[in-house]
């Protein structure tokens, strides 16, 4: 049913670089009373084993909707996938039958959500919720499932796992709850994990712990990781490449260091400038002017043009393509693309 997985014979782990997921020209829209909101407009991205893709964007940029579509948990209706493909190991998941997709969910692709408290069932013990994976997918007995749950809790370093396996989600701290979500996602040793703002609801110190744990486990299992966030600080350490989204489109993709060093899109530039920095103490913090566009009436041309400092008439009429970015000598920069008519000026100016 699922395609053969080229796992390393000895460790059972994936080989780094095995292509896992490819999103192709995905369009998702929401049919609401006020009209059609185009949440995702032709998104393309791919993730390989052992690779971390960070999807960056404000709320409403379509980053979560894309993830939910991959996972198959988009509310339909009002959501509707109007175009595109999502290839998992070469096979289009959007063309699969529901049962086949269900077998992928949780077992091959797992997801970690932002708010662990509301994402865990309040009336089930964490042990039961973790063990459920083994009971449903592996046919484990109650006792085996409990042991597996304890094992998983230990893996994500929850202290006194054996004593706490019968506790309910509300009895854990925020960081511990997110660890349980991570444990749940890891339980079936999936090929790919989608983490939708996994640290947004946590304290800064706990954020770092959770991110480190996630990165460490990813490296150990050679999983692919899609990290969805609006926090540039979170992605810098863990991501390999970044896709910046705006109004349902990818506006820039780049290897993480290149993007930080030299962005090729005015929006990315604005985002980087709006990070508070210690050496700018006392100065006013930069903010991108205006608000993200209403998805019911996205501006003509480049969706970012009303907020852009360098927008021209061309930007107000023509939607920019996702250009391959080159260096000053015209040499292609691998993995770098920008959806800006003025990418050259932005990058080299």
């Amino acid at each position, binding site marked *: 049913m699922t395609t053969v997985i080229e796992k390393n014979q000895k460790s059972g782990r994936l080989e780094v670089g095995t292509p896992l997921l490819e999103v192709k020209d995905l369009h998702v829209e929401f049919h609401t009373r006020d009209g059609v909101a185009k949440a995702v407009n032709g998104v393309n991205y791919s993730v390989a084993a052992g690779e971390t893709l960070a999807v960056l964007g404000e709320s409403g940029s379509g980053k979560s909707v894309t993830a939910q579509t991959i*996972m*198959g*948990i988009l*509310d339909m209706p009002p959501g509707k996938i109007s175009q595109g493909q999502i290839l998992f190991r070469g096979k289009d998941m959007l063309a699969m039958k529901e049962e086949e997709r*269900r*077998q*992928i*969910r*949780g*077992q091959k692709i*797992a*997801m970690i*959500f932002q*708010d662990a408290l*509301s*994402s*865990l*069932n*309040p*009336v*089930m013990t964490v042990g039961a919720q973790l063990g*459920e*994976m083994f009971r*449903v*997918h592996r046919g484990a007995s109650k006792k085996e499932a409990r042991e597996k749950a304890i094992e998983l809790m230990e893996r994500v370093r929850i202290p006194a796992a054996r004593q706490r396996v019968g506790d*309910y989600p*509300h009895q854990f701290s925020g960081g511990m709850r997110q660890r349980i*979500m991570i444990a*749940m996602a890891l339980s079936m040793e999936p090929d790919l994990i989608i983490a939708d703002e996994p640290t947004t609801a946590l304290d800064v110190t706990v954020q770092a712990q959770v991110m480190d744990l996630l990165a460490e486990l990813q490296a150990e299992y050679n999983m692919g990781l899609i990290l969805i966030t609006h926090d540039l600080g979170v992605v810098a350490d863990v991501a390999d490449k970044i896709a910046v989204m705006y109004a349902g489109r990818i506006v820039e993709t780049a290897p993480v260091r290149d993007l930080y060093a030299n962005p090729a899109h005015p929006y990315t530039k604005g985002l980087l400038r709006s990070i508070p920095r210690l050496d700018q103490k006392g100065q006013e913090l930069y903010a991108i002017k205006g608000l993200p566009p209403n998805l019911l009436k996205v501006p003509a041309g480049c969706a970012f043009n009303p907020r852009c400092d360098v927008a021209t008439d061309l930007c107000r009429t023509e939607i920019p393509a996702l250009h391959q970015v080159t260096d000053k000598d015209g040499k292609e920069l691998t993995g770098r693309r920008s959806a800006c008519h003025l990418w050259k000026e932005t990058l080299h100016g």
Partner: protein
Amino acid sequence: MGSYVLRRVLQMIPVFFGTTLLIFLMVYTLPGDPVAALFGEKAADPAVVASIKHKYYLDQPIWKQYLHYMGNLFQGDFGTSFTGRPVTDIMAGAFPVTIRLALLAFVFEMILGLVLGLVSGLRRGSVQDTLVLILTLLVISVPVFVLAYIAQTVFATNLGWVTPTVQNSYDLSQLMLPAIVLGSLSLAYVARLTRTSIGENLRADYMRTAVAKGLPRRTIISRHLLRNSLIPVVTFLGTDLGALMGGAIVTEGIFNVQGIGNVLYRAINQKEGPTVVGIVTVLVIVYLVASLLVDLLYAVLDPRIRYA
């Protein structure tokens, strides 16, 4: 938990005394002389009246009557009705009937209410959903005696499936129709409550997690959705069981069911003080115990609630 139960039981004591005192005062200070009423149109012999009044403590001040009554009550003596029959006897005959009727109504409203609520909650906006909404609205807005007469006309007069009134109040099959009428209003509430609760929980984040875990739809609904959605419904059902026990006066009257409701109605009409006070006292206790059980059940269903 133990201390919570103890506190709740202790709280029941003032509630118990308060309600019984109120009922007692209302019944015995009501205008009209119950003893004179016993003689009907005939002129009563003052000596006989005085002796009856003395026998029933009616010649004493009201507070003495109350203390006397409560004193007997704690020895299990609910007093004697003016017909000379012990009130405990009267209740022993009527309560089993009402309990049967109430339980039948309860099972009916619970099962059908939950099923209807689940079906319409899972398929909002569908034909079934609209149908459930219209039918329940109808049941809620129509008074119970109208439903009772419609049921009598349709099932007894037109179809002839049952007799219009109950012949033997202990026969479960005969109690079926009154029970359905009695439970119909709560059934409508249960169905709507379940529907709303299911609808809310369907959108909950943990449901999204359950789907993302790759669980089969049946597991998601039975293990994750239902358990969470049923918390408010169970609370309603619990308190309703208490209400069904005492609230069947109209239904029992129309279908001639010889239960508590019927006895109570007659006793009120005949100013049968001891019977009225006795029955209401028992109903108060039933209600208090039912609400305590609901609160305890609530903690079992929802682990977030812990009583300290």
